């Protein structure tokens, strides 16, 4: 089963994402902000990182840049309430391969994660 690291500053978002991925993906860890995501990514080497954009300490886009600099093959999908074209483009330019706008449905999330793992 593919492994996923979830990064979101919202406890509720992490809780619901775990629920949505249950059975199809193995959630190997959670991170609460961008700094935490970089550290947890180094530690866990998940198949895919699912990350929010707006977070304290270090934003999702900055975290993606740092992870991609260190792990150029990282597979990263953004799940954010900020679905504006410019912000999606910024996240993609940083290295995100997929983007899901919140509130995401379970099938949308699975499809986005599946697409980057294909």
């Amino acid at each position, binding site marked *: 089963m593919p492994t996923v690291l979830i990064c979101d500053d919202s406890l509720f978002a992490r809780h619901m994402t775990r629920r949505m991925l249950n059975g199809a993906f193995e959630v190997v860890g959670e991170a609460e902000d961008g700094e935490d995501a970089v550290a947890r990514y180094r530690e866990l080497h998940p198949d895919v990182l699912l990350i929010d954009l707006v977070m304290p300490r270090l934003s999702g886009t900055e975290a993606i840049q740092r992870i991609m600099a260190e792990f150029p093959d990282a597979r990263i999908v953004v799940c954010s309430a900020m*679905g504006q074209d410019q*912000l999606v483009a910024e996240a993609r330019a940083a290295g995100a391969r997929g983007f899901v706008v919140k509130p995401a449905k379970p099938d949308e999330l699975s499809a986005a994660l599946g697409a980057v793992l294909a």
Partner: protein
Amino acid sequence: MPERLASQIAGLSLLELDALRELANVGAGHAATALSRMTARRVAVTVPTVAVASAAAVAELLLAGPEPAVAVALTAQGSFAARFVVALTDRHARGLADLLLGGGDAGAPPHLAESALQETGNVLAGAFLAAMSSITGWCIPFSPPLLVRVADSAGAALVTEPGCALCLETSFSVDGGPPVRGHLLLFPRHDTVTGLRARIAEWRLGN
């Protein structure tokens, strides 16, 4: 009458007032769609009204009785600098959290209900501001959500934005089950209103 007062304070013409209301209407529609997806329920919104952005006026709007309200506030930045607020009375906030968590969530981490409300604010702000971005062409980043308890004018002052003369207000209701009703408030800063007036003038000229 409060609308006229608010528009006079902000120096808006009737056409500009109407255009701002329409912007808020589109934003609220997108936010309602997002809330409907989160709750799997039909969500209705009222036509936006323009109110004076003072703490006292906001407290009066949010506090219909002695029951305190819970507000989730986010700050939009860039050309669309504004405060976006989702507010519900305690009872309706509990109802919304129950709805989002599917009723009692045994074994759930502590503070999950508060987090659910904050995330709701985040998602609704994202939907509302994405619509504003699409209309204006501006990139509108925003801050993480902040949960604020509002029991009086002092509490309301924590969610209002300094430098704002007016507030665009829309009420929403989630149908089915226990009633869940609340408010979406947008406090555009003075320079945001100025920028929007310029955009409205361009749209009138067909640019």
